[in-house]
């Protein structure tokens, strides 16, 4: 893809980003309830003081102007002060982010690790019991409510058999100094294998809850992509040359079948970030998703607004990346 083409694509996402910001702005602005009253709820402010605060916050200006101010501030990462933490919203957000990214990455890697072998097997043994079993399992996977699946896993693996912890990110006695915020990395940097193991064990159930339904979806993509590739001329030719089955599958077929898989996986990563809110709540995982849910009940609106915008922008960017990957990896697509 040429640089100009890339730039053009980038420009195409701008209206979406603008629209997304507008909706997030309106979400807060059109909410019944006066933010000034919420902020001053505990103090005995006079109406004059409230008016001053309203003016300082720019709430007395016309809507379009307020939107432009909101946009300008958002671009510099200024989302105001979190009512609850009494610190800038952005700082609180960034602090919680590594836990969420760690969980999301673990889930998507797990999903790929499960989906690729299963999908390939189903495509190779098409229309056998294996293929049918896979489609039954993946239908089951997409029908599973995530919050309930997590609770079921807790019930079996934590409460009943005690293999994994019930929730949280690590044990209290195994905390290490925060360097990157990614616990798996920080524990290794500290050279604490016991803490690393604990972090891994805490990560297991939430990652499975988030990852397995995604695996169900991805396995379908792998299967149909692989099935299509397997009937193509170049695979038949490779087989006719007498190459071994394994070599044909891995070197010739899978490499091409992975193009749509990578694309869907990139988009799914964006959805997983949203699904995190549920899973983090179920497992008490101290990430962004749980913070957002807590903030909703604390009526900490600036934080909710910033987080929703952050999720949406990440989602749009990941969709853009998926698009690039699809174009970049596939020699047949030249846009």
């Amino acid at each position, binding site marked *: 893809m040429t640089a100009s083409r890339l730039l053009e694509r980038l420009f195409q996402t701008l209206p979406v980003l603008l629209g997304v910001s507008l909706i997030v702005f309106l979400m807060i602005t059109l909410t019944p309830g006066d933010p000034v009253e919420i902020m001053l709820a505990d103090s005995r402010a006079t109406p004059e003081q409230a008016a001053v605060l309203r003016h300082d916050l720019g709430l007395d200006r016309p809507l379009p102007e307020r939107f432009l101010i909101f946009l300008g501030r958002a671009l510099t990462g200024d989302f105001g002060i979190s009512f609850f933490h009494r610190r800038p919203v952005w700082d609180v957000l960034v602090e919680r982010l590594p836990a969420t990214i760690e969980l999301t990455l673990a889930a998507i890697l797990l999903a790929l690790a499960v989906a690729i072998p299963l999908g390939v097997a189903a495509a190779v043994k098409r229309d056998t019991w294996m293929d049918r079993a896979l489609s039954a399992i993946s*239908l089951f996977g997409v029908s599973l409510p995530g919050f309930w699946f997590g*609770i079921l896993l807790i019930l079996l693996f934590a409460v009943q058999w005690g293999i994994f912890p019930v929730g949280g990110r690590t044990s209290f006695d195994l905390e290490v100094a925060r360097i990157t915020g990614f616990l798996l990395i920080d524990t290794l940097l500290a050279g604490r294998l016991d803490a690393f193991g604990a972090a891994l064990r805490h990560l297991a159930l939430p990652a499975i809850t988030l990852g397995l339904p995604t695996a169900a979806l991805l396995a379908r993509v792998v299967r149909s992509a692989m099935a299509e590739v397997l009937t193509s001329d170049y695979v038949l030719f490779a087989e006719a040359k007498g190459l071994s089955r394994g070599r044909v599958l891995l070197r010739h077929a899978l490499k091409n079948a992975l193009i749509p898989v990578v694309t869907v996986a990139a988009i799914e990563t964006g959805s997983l970030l949203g699904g995190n809110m549920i899973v983090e709540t179920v497992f008490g995982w101290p990430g962004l998703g749980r913070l957002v849910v807590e903030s909703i009940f604390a009526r900490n609106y600036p934080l909710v607004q910033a987080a929703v915008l952050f999720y949406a922008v990440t989602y749009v960017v990941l969709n853009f990346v998926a698009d690039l990957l699809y174009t970049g990896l596939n020699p047949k697509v030249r846009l």
Partner: protein
Amino acid sequence: MSAAEAGALSPLGLGLERFRANRTALLAAAVILLFVLAALSAPWIAPHDPADADLFRRLQPPAWLEGGEWGFPLGCDSLGRDILSRLLFGARVSLLVAAIVICIAAVIGTLAGLAAGYLRGWTDTLIGRLVDTLLGFPYLVFAIGLMAMMGPGLHNIILVLVYKEWVFSCRVVRGETLAAREQDYVEAARALGAGPGHIMLREILPNVLSPVLVVATFRMAYVIIMEASLSFLGLGVQPPTPSWGSMVADGRDFLVDAWWVSTLPGLAILMLVLAINLASQGLRDAFDPRLHSA
């Protein structure tokens, strides 16, 4: 069925004929019907008032376990309320929300898709921009963000889900309309002097209805999970109205002593959603002509 008979059937009739031959899909449809009947008749068949608390029956196990009794077949929750009765009334919430959301979204989406696909121009651009923007949010994030602002409740859940849901039928209808626009029958209607309104609603609409039906059932499963997820987080239907999602949430604190409180409502969601997914697969196979020519 002979070729002559098949020729006599409308596309809709032909699809229904194919659906009837699919045993899995029929079974799934029967399960859905069972849920709908149970929800409709909940006030008469529920053994107890779903809001009736009795602390002496707190966390009473299901009948087949020790300490259970057949008067409360599925046991009781942490306030001693009968779980079976709450499940039956909870089905009303799930099905009502899903049905209303899907119907409104299908109507809006179909009309918007017809307008965008047939009129093109700035209508298409405007609707397209709106669709792209709404697709720019992960579904759950959009719903949670809006519910947080609008406050919980049945009304708001329906609104929030409709805001996003219409996009899916709109995209499908727009695509179908774009294709239909170039067909002979539309050309013929235009040549006879039919206006855009007539062509969209009388000529094209009947031909895009079966994809709308397939998308609507397929999306219905998703909407049920969304409603349950919002209720689970406490952003959905408020107590004392029982909803499956909030029932699962209520049981979370008692996993060690009373697994049934959380497990059973989740099982109900899974069964209903699975049945809808299976039925929508059957509908897709029956109505999608592309699959049949292959």
